[in-house]
């Protein structure tokens, strides 16, 4: 097999970026050593980290990722924080674990959805089924048990973006 | 202002002492290990306050990383509970 096929440009970029970020300086020495390290690592890990290189370098996906990040941290987080704070003071809570279907195909998309759900207060992902099709979510206010409505309330906002970014 | 550093250190060593005492008294080794990792984390903060970034890097990798993994491995290969007095 052609050894050059093992080289993964996306991994190279990620490693170099992390290296420079941690070092905190962009001198000649850093660039050279960083590139060498990134080259070695990207040959070693093959396409294990990033399966599809073209997806990684697509500007459209990056744009969605940035938009999602801003909206998530500025709007969604604030909303849920206020909601949970209200519940704390009024003692209105109806906790329970619900099962939610998951439509995202890629692994990273699933991780993004699960972590986004966990990071917003009020909802925590407890488990994921072995085939990756179902999420088990602990929800502070189980208002409905209908699958579609649950999905609408808990997952769909994140999932739309996850699909745009990773699928 | 140096008192601020020393006050944080006082908190660090007090927590360290309390948690290492608890670790000694605990019969469940997994819990004892968790308690001693609390102590390690506080000590990392202590090294940080004492202006020793090199030690912090080495100590964290050792005490929070490799050492914990090693002891969990040992517990999983031997017994989890210490036999009481």
């Amino acid at each position: 097999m052609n050894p050059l096929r093992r080289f993964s440009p996306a991994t190279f970029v990620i490693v170099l970026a992390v290296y420079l970020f941690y070092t905190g300086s962009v001198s000649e020495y850093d660039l050279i050593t960083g590139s060498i390290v990134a080259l070695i690592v990207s040959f070693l890990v093959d396409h294990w980290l990033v399966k599809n290189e073209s997806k990684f370098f697509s500007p459209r996906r990056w744009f969605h990722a940035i938009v999602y990040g801003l909206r998530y941290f500025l709007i969604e987080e604030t909303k849920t924080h206020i909601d949970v704070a209200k519940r704390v003071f009024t003692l209105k809570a109806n906790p329970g674990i619900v099962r939610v279907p998951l439509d995202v195909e890629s692994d990273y998309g699933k991780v993004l959805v699960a972590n986004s759900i966990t990071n917003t207060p009020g909802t925590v992902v407890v488990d994921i089924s072995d085939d990756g099709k179902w999420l088990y979510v602990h929800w502070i206010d189980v208002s409905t048990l209908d699958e579609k409505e649950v999905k609408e309330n808990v997952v769909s906002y994140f999932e739309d973006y996850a699909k745009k970014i990773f699928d | 202002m140096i008192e601020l550093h020393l006050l944080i250190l006082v908190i660090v060593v007090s927590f360290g002492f309390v948690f290492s005492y608890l670790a000694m008294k605990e019969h469940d080794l997994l819990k004892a290990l968790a308690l001693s990792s609390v102590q390690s984390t506080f000590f990392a903060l202590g090294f940080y306050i004492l202006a020793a970034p090199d030690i912090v890097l080495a100590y964290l990798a050792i005490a929070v990383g490799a050492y914990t993994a090693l002891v969990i491995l040992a517990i999983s290969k031997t017994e989890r509970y210490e036999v009481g007095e």
Partner: protein
Amino acid sequence: MNFESAFLNVLYFSAVIYALAFILYGIRAIKGPTTADIILAVDCLSFDMAAFMVVLGIYFKSIMLASGAIILALWAFMLDVYYTKYVLYGEVEV
């Protein structure tokens, strides 16, 4: 009131809150009836500590000290994975 002093005030405030959180986590780690409680407390304590370190780093105006915080956050993740795997499967590296 200029920006810097306001920022420092916020820092003071957050440092105090982090320190209070230490105590709460510490209580949970001491009391925690099950092992899972203790592990969760250790985990939260580690991340809390990392954040506290960053705050202190800003306060002392030293970038160097922030690198420890990044490392601590990463290591705490490893600690969780190990505990979890042990509690779930009994053996770790299989």
